[in-house]
């Protein structure tokens, strides 16, 4: 039995992390450490968090069927768990990106109006 929890609409930050993870995996399968590195680097270290906190999100996404995982061997020749985006995850990424853009645009509009 898999628990189906509805995506928490209000939880913006968590939703954002989910989106970032999915975005990272567009390029292809990656293991947890790589995902953390990529998010840190591409955000120019602005989004630095405890790396561990990535994993509950990964597992949650996997539970929802947006990711699939399997054990493999990493570039360092170590055992690592690789995450890969599923078609369902791809759809979710598109939806989440859309939502994000609409929101940031709205916020931009407000902020822009105020500064002018």
């Amino acid at each position: 039995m898999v628990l189906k929890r509805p995506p928490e609409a209000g939880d913006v930050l968590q939703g954002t992390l989910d989106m970032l993870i999915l975005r990272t995996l567009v390029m292809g399968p990656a293991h947890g450490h790589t995902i953390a590195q990529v998010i840190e680097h591409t955000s120019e270290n602005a989004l630095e968090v405890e790396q561990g906190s990535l994993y509950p999100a990964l597992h949650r996404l996997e539970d929802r069927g947006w990711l699939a995982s399997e054990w493999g061997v990493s570039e360092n020749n170590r055992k690592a768990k690789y995450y890969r985006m599923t078609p369902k995850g791809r759809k979710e990424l598109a939806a989440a990106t859309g939502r994000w853009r609409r929101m940031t645009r709205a916020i931009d509009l407000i902020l822009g109006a105020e500064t002018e």
Partner: protein
Amino acid sequence: MTMRRSIERARKDEDFAEEIESHLAHEQDAQAARGVAPEEARRRARLRFGNPRTLRERVWRHSSLPWLDDGARDLRFALRSLARTPAFTVITLLVIAVGIGVNTAVFSVIDAVLLKPLTWPDPGALVQLVLNTDRGAFAGASIPEFALWSQQAGLFQQIAAYDFGAAGVNLTGGDHPEQVQAVHVTRDYFALFGAPVVAGRTFTAAEDSANGGRVVVLSYGLWKQRYGGNRGIIGTTIQLDGQPYLVVGVIGRNFVTDTPVDLWVPNQFDLNSHEMVVNYTVVARLGPGVTLAQANAQLRLVADQFRRAYGSHSLPPGGGFGVVPLQQFMVGDMRFPLLVPLGAVGFVLLIACGNVANLLLARASARRRELATRAALGAGRSQIIRQLLTESLVLALAGGLLGLFFGFFGVRLLLRINPGNIPRIRATGPSISLDPHILLFTLGVSVLTGVLFGLIPAIAASRPNLAATLNEGSSRSGTSFRQGKVRSILVISEVALALVLVIGAALLIRTFRKLGEVDPGFTTHNVLTMAMSVSGDRFQTTAPVAHLVRDGQDRLQAVPGVLAAGASNCLPLASGFGMVFDIVGRPKGNAPFTGGAGFYSISSGYFSSLGIPLVRGRVFTERDDASAPGVVVISQAMARQYWPNGDPLKERIQIGAGAGPAFAEPPRQVVGIVGDTRNRSVDRNPDPMMYIPLAQMPDGETALNAKVAPLYWIVRTRENPYAVLAPVEAALREASSDLAVAHIRSMDEVEARNIARQRFNMALLTIFGLSGLLMAAIGVYGVMSYSVQQRTQEMGVRMALGAQASNLRNMIIGQGMILALLGVAVGLAGAFWLTRFLAGFLFGVKAWDPMAFLLTPLLLCAVALLAVWIPARRATRVDPMTALRLE
């Protein structure tokens, strides 16, 4: 499911641990690549990652069903904590189990008798035809009444008359003759009751008319047992009383009759008969849309019509016809007797609930500190409540299961002491089992009790007033005072309820003993009685019956060990007829009846076989036969009532005038007066009785008698009457040329059956009284021992200050007994008010019997004293030093 889930979860956790290791290794590699030393690289990797354990817990929780896991944990914890206090657990379980068990058993019986609708199709439309008089409704009907009722077009869908088959018939023609129960019915009987036919058919209209031929319908039981369930039996003949009867059908197993029936034969009424003998029960199914009121209105008119047709004396003055719903009629006089156990059972349930509440409250307040500590350590309020509720639910359900067990055996116990005259409980194969609805109901009650009384302390204990509770000394009283008061009130109520129960039981026990002391007016010891069916063509006139009785009596008296033998058409305390009579020469009253009296036809040996004393005149001899002048012997009660000043021995009476042609006979001379006998039941005053010789019965009456009653043989023996059973049976078989006897009982057994109802009530209320008493004792004990335990420190201080052990003991006893005495006072008031409802069941005892009202409170106080004594002794054993150091 849960198992697989938890295995899965453990596997996932292991997987995750490995994933974390992998992450840390990669991060370490990355750090090392930047030139950090291995030790430092590892440290930094861990730092950047965060706490792996917290993460694993988060993931773990994510993949679990929280309430299920928490529930399982609560359950484990509840079991552990209940196991830590075995005394509390066992007592609570027993209280719940006894409460539920007793309730379920009694409700199951009551439900089957009172509450369950009849098993017949559309039972609501079934009615009993009655004769309404100013003395109540009587069910008996005669053929002319039945004939007139049947003509009421539209009023009834079906109407049927039947007798109770008390006479029995002799099933002969096999290797062993057998006496079976045959009920005479009219044609519509089977359709009316919706009797299923498994083979053949029921009677046709032609077969149920006069001269309709000899046909019979078999019951399922007889068909299976005697004919092996062979369908070929249809269309063949069987021998009943030596006559061939054509078997036309077999009725299905599910057909329930009030008394066991082996076969049915058609009544074959002559509908033009003027026979006024009231021998039949008439039941009808109301026509579509006909209400009870409409039926009753029309039947009042029918009664007038009946009077016009058969004369004004054919119905008693003011009497009329009516209908009563069949179920109401059947269980009518059972309703009240069963309400007593119902009320008592409610009391037991209340006591049980009070006890459970008490125990749970005490337990919860004893654990206030434990709960506060847990709250301080981070347990949420809902978690604590849930935890306590889990415990009470575990208790309630386990107690309920145990109660189911008790109930299962309780039903069997109840059926064993069943008086045998509760309708719809059959002696063989009880049709009553544990009712699942009732079980659910009582289980629901117990769970509700558990939840309700578990919830109150749980909520109270979960209040976030941690500091106060944790800092409270063990001797504090302020905060728990309210709960203490609640518990005291509970205990007082329990004692009061128990007292009412025990007083009720005491009254019934005394009633039963008084009944046993009543002299019925005849010997019951070493007397054997048997019933012989004298139906059939051989016994349609008086002469052959008289011959059989004379021959049989002679043979019986010749059996070694037999002191006296006799025969009659009724058996005291088992059956009886009544008859009207006129005293010759006296002016008649407003009816043809000058009086009514019990009416027995007896053999010459009857009085000596039952040891009924002759007071004046003479008893019958063999010379009082058909050729001799008619004679009658009366009882003292009859002499007193109808000859308050005169001498009955100088007068003649005319028996049965107006009762129909079968009873036509010349007047009889009163020749003797015998002692009074309590023929109907031992708790009723002796009825006026008249006895006539069997040999002097009119032929028509003998023929009628044979249809409705067997011939009873009575044998008084020197020793155990069953020791001579074999030669007695043999003698009767010879005398009757091979007729069997049935219903073989000693007179002691007949008497026991007669007061079985009282014994049943007594046994029930005794059970309830004892369980109530026990539970009240548990309640007192629980409260006092809890109070002693709570006040250990106080005791220590008192002892340290010089209090004697006896002072402490007396203090505790005093406090406990105040509760008990308050309960007794309340209970006495309640009992004074409630026992009046028992008055109808009492005999020789007043509802406010001083013995019961003095001894019972004493008994209760003694039990309470014992319950208080144990904790009081414990208080005196408190070691001051230990007690003071306790906190």
